Structure formats: structure tokens, C-alpha cells
């Protein structure tokens, strides 16, 4: 095993900032605070610039410029994806969002918000209905006997878990007697799923630590 430290200044800066963040594991300190504030500031700046160039310029300014320069035919061309003057309307709605800063005309922002919420509600509702609700109900209906003991047992446990969990969320009657037993079984099924979720979360967080240590060992120190 030999060391071949990186000659890249960026890698050294990243390594130093990683160590600053790790120092918080001992206790809060100025190095950690510095790295934390730097990260927040750089992230905010990065996302602001990113939004400007990938949303405002790419989706609004460039198409409008092309529309009014005449290089793409009529400014009111209607074929989808064409550069068109109609984009002035969403631009105006976007500007109206800033009317919140002027109390006298702040109500104007509601028009933009109504459009945004309406469009997204429509999009999400149809998507959820198609992708989640109907498809998941279809997926939940399965034969209990498949001809093989293993898969049949799996199907039975799945169906019992599904019904018990649904009963756990039935609140129109006190959970006593048979309903109480079923809802308790549902709670155990839920706890198993929470446990699986916790295990995966631990894996995700450990992966981040492994990623940072791999960076420090291989990219920064050049361990081979």
C-alpha cells in the first residue's frame, strides 16, 4: 500500500472541507461552522444561477428572443416546442407572483398560484390514480394458491398483512375483539415495514460515510 497524494487543488479543498464537517462528530467548533456556512451559501448561489440559466434563459428568454427576431417564422407559431410569443403569458404570471411584496396589489399573485396549483393538482391526481391507486389494487389481487408451496405461502402472508394493515387504519369502531386482534396484527406488519425502512436508511447513511472515506483514501491520499 503506497500514498500518491492528489495534485489537484480542488481535491485538497474538498478533503479539507470534509474533515471540517467530520470534526463536528467530536463537538461543535469553528471549522465545522465555517464549512457549514460555506456549503449553505455556495448551494444557495449555485441553485440561483442554475435556475436563472436553465429556467429563465432556456425556457423564456431564448424562445422569446427567437420568436421576435423572426428567425423561426411567425412569433405566434403554434406547433408544440416552437419558439413563440405566447410565452409572454406565463412570463406575466411569473411577474405577478412578486406582487406579494406590495400589499395593495398582492391579490394578483393568486392568479398565478391558482394556475400552478390547478395544473399540478390535475397532473398529480391523474398520475396517482393511474400509477398508484389502480395499479396497486390490481397488484394486490393475487391467487392464494399458485401451485408452489413457497409462493403460495408468500401470497397468503401478503394478503393477511394487507388486510390486517387496512383494519389497523379503520377508526370508525373501537379496536376490541376480532377487530382489535386484526389491527394488532396489522401494527406488527407495519413495524416490520418500519424496521426494513430503518435498515435501508442506515445503509444509505453508511454509504455516504463510505463515499467520503473512499474519496479521502483514494482520490485525496491516492492510496494504492
Amino acid at each position: 500500500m503506497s500514498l500518491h497524494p492528489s495534485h489537484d487543488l480542488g481535491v485538497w479543498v474538498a478533503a479539507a472541507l470534509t474533515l471540517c464537517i467530520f470534526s463536528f462528530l467530536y463537538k461543535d467548533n469553528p471549522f465545522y461552522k465555517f464549512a457549514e456556512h460555506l456549503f449553505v451559501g455556495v448551494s444557495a448561489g449555485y441553485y440561483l444561477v442554475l435556475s436563472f440559466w436553465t429556467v429563465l434563459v432556456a425556457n423564456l428568454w431564448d424562445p422569446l428572443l427567437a420568436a421576435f427576431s423572426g428567425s423561426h417564422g411567425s412569433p405566434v407559431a403554434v406547433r408544440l416546442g416552437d419558439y413563440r410569443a405566447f410565452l409572454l403569458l406565463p412570463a406575466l404570471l411569473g411577474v405577478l407572483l412578486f406582487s406579494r411584496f406590495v400589499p395593495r396589489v398582492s391579490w394578483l399573485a393568486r392568479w398565478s398560484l391558482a394556475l400552478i396549483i390547478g395544473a399540478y393538482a390535475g397532473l398529480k391526481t391523474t398520475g396517482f390514480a393511474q400509477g398508484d391507486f389502480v395499479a396497486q389494487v390490481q397488484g394486490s389481487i393475487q391467487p392464494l394458491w399458485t401451485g408452489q408451496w413457497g409462493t403460495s405461502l408468500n401470497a397468503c402472508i401478503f394478503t393477511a398483512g394487507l388486510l390486517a394493515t387496512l383494519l389497523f387504519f379503520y377508526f370508525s369502531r373501537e379496536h376490541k375483539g376480532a377487530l382489535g386482534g386484526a389491527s394488532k396484527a396489522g401494527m406488527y406488519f407495519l413495524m416490520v415495514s418500519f424496521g426494513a425502512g430503518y435498515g435501508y436508511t442506515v445503509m444509505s447513511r453508511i454509504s455516504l460515510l463510505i463515499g467520503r472515506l473512499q474519496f479521502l483514501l483514494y482520490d485525496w491520499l491516492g492510496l494504492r
Partner: protein
Amino acid sequence: MRQLEGLARLDRRWIFTVTGLLVLIPLLWPLNLPLTPSPPVRAYYDAVAAVPDGSHVLVSCDFDPAARPELEPMTRTTLRQLFAKRCKVVVVVLYPGGARLVDQIVREVATERGALYGTDLVNLGFKAGNEAVMVLMGQSIPNTFPRDQNGLDVGTLPIMRGVRNYSSFPLLVSISTGYPGTKEYVQQVQGRFHIPIAAGVTAVAAPTMYPYLQSGQLLGLLGGMAGAAEYERLMHESGPASRGMDAQSLAHVFVALCIVLGNVAQWGWKRREGA
């Protein structure tokens, strides 16, 4: 029992130290613990393998540097499997902050495999709009992404000839860390445009994806670093995910041990208080 009760007052920095060592030592001296591909990972591999050689494949890489350790290895392995089949890879990014990272990964794998940009591969870059972009791509991909990551007109690229919408692809590979990602592709695209989807997600998101796998809405699933490592094993690679799995396993055993000891200590504590 009294010693176990002392665990409740243990300085948490000891736990950090042990966890750090359990992750660091296997990275320095690998243990090569056994790793067996699970059915969801094998299904992912099979879904990519079933794509006809030379066909177009849409790969949506929706992650940023925060998810890099988990999703970069599976992205690289997926691209290698696709390039080995001479597939034409169309990459899109719907996650802000990920475009540069994804471009770097895609170009490195393309160079390594001798894939030509514009002919075997195109990175259409980032487009803001989340689900709206997904739905628009179902109408026309060239109109949704008129220019690629570097500002080239997609109409001039040979790979984009014949690419109209989702119907131009036999498979969509979604590698994602959150919103927008695989869940939104299942909701907005799979049901509406009927394109088969194989997914790779972070470990945190994996449990929420299993219902889609069980219902057949996803053909295969890679969950976190473990999924990526199993996929590398199927591809006979020894990438960063495989190298990290020894550390992952040891850390998990330690966390499980801490949970057991913590519960025993708590139980002892309560018993003494009750007595």
C-alpha cells in the same frame, strides 16, 4: 446488568469512533465477504439484457452529488451493460444540481467503452418542470429538449434520428434519489405511455419502490449501495460499490448490536425503577 445500564450513559463519540473504524479498516484491508445477487437486482440485469442490441434506451439520471456514493456506481455499470449491447443511450436529467455530475459520469464511461458522442450517446441535460417534463417527453422528446447539455441542436445529432417520444425506447432506466424520480415516472409515464421501467434508487427510497416491483410496474430494482454491488457482481466488475460492501456489512452488524444492547439496557433500567 449494571454494566449494560452504563451503556445508556455512554458517550456517543465512542459509537462514532467504532463505526468509523469499522468502515475504514475494511476499505484498507478488504475482507471479501460473500455477496449474492438478489431477485430484484437479477431482474434489473435481465431487463437491461433483454433490450434488443443496438436499440435506443432512455436513461434518466435524477440525482445530485449528495447521492453519488450510492447511485454513481450503478449508473456506470448500467451504461457499461448498455454500451456492451451497442445500445444508443439517451440521457436526461430532471434533478437540479445533477447535470454536471451526470455529464461527467456519462462521458467517462463513453470514453472508456469507445462510445461516440452524438452517435452512440447523447446527454440532453437538465430540464426544469418535474412531472410536466415527463409528460411532455411523451409527446415529443426533441421538442422538450431542443438542445443537448452543451447547447447543440439535437436535430443535428445522428442518434436523435428516429427518436420521437417514449415509443422510441424499449426500456426506460430511471436512476433517482428523490423528487422527481422513479415514483413520478411510474405515476406519470409507465401507466400512461406503457414503457417498461427498470429503476435504481438510494437505499432510503428503496422500501417505497418494492410495491411497484411487486405489481410489475418496475421490471427490476437496484436499492442503494448493496443493489449496486450485487449488480457489479452480475457484470463481473469490482467497482466502488463492491469495495464498500465489507464496510457496509460490518457497520450494519454494529448498529444491530447497539440496538440490541440499548434495548437490554433500557429494559434493565425500567426494571430497577419499577422495583
